[in-house]
């Protein structure tokens, strides 16, 4: 079944393909009708990502076989594109628009606040795995700037306060007027996060 799952070094025999049989079968089915000389690799990425929510690394040798190239080339290609994810997304992913319209209207402030509240750095998943923050490129919905998206839903234009209240609600904390000390993350952690805000 996985006869195609080889890389074309032509000398070295194929490494056994790792991964659960069901997963491999499903991936093979998805890329069945694609071919190497037909601008299909991106299509393969999209199909697999649509199915699993990310691109499992088990798919790499299968893709290499299908597209008559080496796993290294496939991996390099995956690595190149920012919208191809290689790890499953967090339960709730907050997407933060990095575009200039949002920036000029104060999106960096929102980013700092979100990172502090969700206890999560940009393009990372929070330690409990509940939240993920993802940097996305501008898609021209600038009348909502500054905006964030949650699972494809657009929220904007946001003030920093609104984004904080929103994030607290998302986290299951009371977003309304708070009493002392409530709803703040561990202090050392958040100030560390703040230091890293712009280095990401």
């Amino acid at each position, binding site marked *: 079944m996985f006869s195609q799952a080889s890389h074309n070094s032509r000398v070295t025999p194929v490494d056994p393909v790792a991964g659960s049989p069901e997963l491999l079968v499903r991936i093979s089915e998805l890329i069945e009708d694609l071919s190497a000389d037909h601008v299909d690799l991106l299509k393969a990425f999209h199909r697999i990502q649509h199915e699993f929510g990310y691109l499992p690394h088990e798919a790499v040798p299968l893709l290499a076989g299908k597209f008559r190239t080496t796993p290294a080339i496939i991996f390099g290609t995956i690595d190149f594109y920012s919208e191809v994810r290689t790890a499953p997304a967090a339960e709730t992913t907050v997407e933060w628009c990095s575009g200039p319209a949002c920036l000029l209207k104060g999106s960096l402030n929102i980013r700092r*606040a979100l990172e502090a509240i969700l206890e999560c750095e940009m393009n990372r998943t929070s330690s409990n795995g509940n939240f993920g923050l993802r940097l996305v490129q501008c898609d021209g919905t600038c009348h909502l700037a500054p905006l964030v998206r949650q699972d494809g839903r657009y929220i904007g234009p946001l003030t920093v306060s609104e984004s904080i209240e929103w994030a607290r609600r998302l986290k299951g904390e009371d977003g309304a007027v708070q009493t002392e000390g409530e709803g703040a993350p561990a202090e050392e952690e958040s100030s560390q996060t*703040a230091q890293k805000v712009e280095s990401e």
Partner: protein
Amino acid sequence: MTLPTYKEMWQQADEVWTRTARPARTLIKVGVATCSRVVGAEETLETLRREVQARRLDADVMLTGCLGLCYAEPLVEVIRPNVPGILYQLMTADKVASLLETAVAADGNAREHALAVMGDKEFGGLPALGSLEFMRGQVRRLMANCGVTDPESIDHYLARGGYEGLVGALRLKPVEVIDEVKKSGLWGRGGAAFSTGLKWEFLYNAKRKPKYLICNADEGDPGSFVNRNLMESDPQLLVEGMIIGGYATEADKGCIYIRDEYPLPVERMELAVAQARERGLVGEGILGSDFSFELEVVRGAGSYVCGDETGLLSSLEDRRGMPKIKPPFPAQAGVFAMPSNINNVESYTNVPLIMRHGADWWAEMGSEKHKGTKMFSLSGQIQRVGILEVPLGTPTSDVVMRMGGGPPKGRKLKAVQPGGPLSGVIPASDVDIPLEPDPYRERGVLMGSGGLVILDDTNCIVDLCVYFEWFAEDESCGRCTTCFAGTRRMLEILRRISSGRGRLADLELIKLLGSIAQNANCFHGQGAPTAVMSMFRFFEGELLEHVERKRCPAKVCRGLVRYEVLHHSDRLPAAEAICPTNAVVRDNGTYRIDQLKCIKCDACREQAPYAIAVVDEFAPA
């Protein structure tokens, strides 16, 4: 050639269109495109359909594209028989009931939300759409169908003159089509401004087969969204443009490469291509001629440099989308080493208009040197975010200050970034220059693809340059050291300046990096320092303020400001509550800000604007 097929097709289409243009009963049009979808246009459409049925109203509900008035979305147009259509703004699903009661069921207008009357004449006390500040001065040629026809119906496109240009082109020899395009003076709208006709001639002259015709719809420039609007509001125009291009250059295959961030354009383009194929407009023997052309939509996966023409080629070859080294040029050896031609969406979409109305008609618009119209998108610190189409040579101030309404009330225009992060910025004092490549080039700025981003006096130019360099660094493909390492170095220096550790020697370093970057292979590397160079040229004072006095005049750069409680106010408890890091501390009834905890997110100042202020970190006491 069996042209009657086209005639039959047109007659059938005309019947469909007449029902929309002159409806026998009330017709409600809902604009659904990316910009309106994000504010709930789909829900509006669904609610309208459901409610019209539930109330048994004598009305039809139709989908349409986007008029470009992003600031007023979702837009709903209600056309009653024999009365011009009335446009209602901000029509979210919750307002549908009141709209139906006042505008459809009763014989009145829902004044409250009415924006304008379609067309050029006012009606019933409502202004004409053409007389709105945003629309006045616009010439809608490419956008003629946007927000008027159903983007998912090829009949609407056909009835409004669609594919007439293709029929005209098929009557000519390919060389004659190229001559017509050359005569019009159309140049590539993607930013390089190279003659489209000439580019097509290169491909036509290439001997090897198959030849590829590629449409660059990877509109990666953040803040520009003109191609998106064309593809989702009038997808057939691009299909027709590609087919004419294919005929003129004798290409065999066409390919529309759309960026991953645009799911709706992908959907609509795929549908448009399928519909065109059904009608025999794509595929074997187009319109009964012996010309065959295949067209395919490819979805990218999130990479800015794939918008560079050779980067796009690499991406199509199933590899990392790294720009190639030129020569060989794409016309000699492009995708799969075969002759290829790459144009922007707007370049292709102009061609049907040229072939339909002739090059002379097309060249009527525009300035002395630059013909035709160009679409621009407005975003950033501007009152009316949207998409507009103006003749080339229109003063920038006309577009930004009048049509866009300028920056929000009480603020002053600071600068305009004309097209993408690699294009640079022009200062407010130069805002009167015409929108065409030459005056921009004189100022060391590139007009680019038409995404105007507006800065006002609350924005810091150094902060913006940090963003541009971050973007350039983040999206660098990694081939040339001058680019991937140069942008990183530049970013480090700029961040140093914005954090208050800048030194005068940095300025020389930046200039040096700027000139080294010219040795990069593709425009991504070469263009990366453009914004920084325009900062030197136009905003040197502000930059020096950062470096010498460690002060950010706009109070944006994080390392140069801090938050302080200056007065007492009743709002301070709210500020304390909102702070995400508990940095607003209460000591014996007075408040202060714990500078170690503060992440400078501005939320407390939003809550207590009188009490809390942003002050210079290194201000002289």
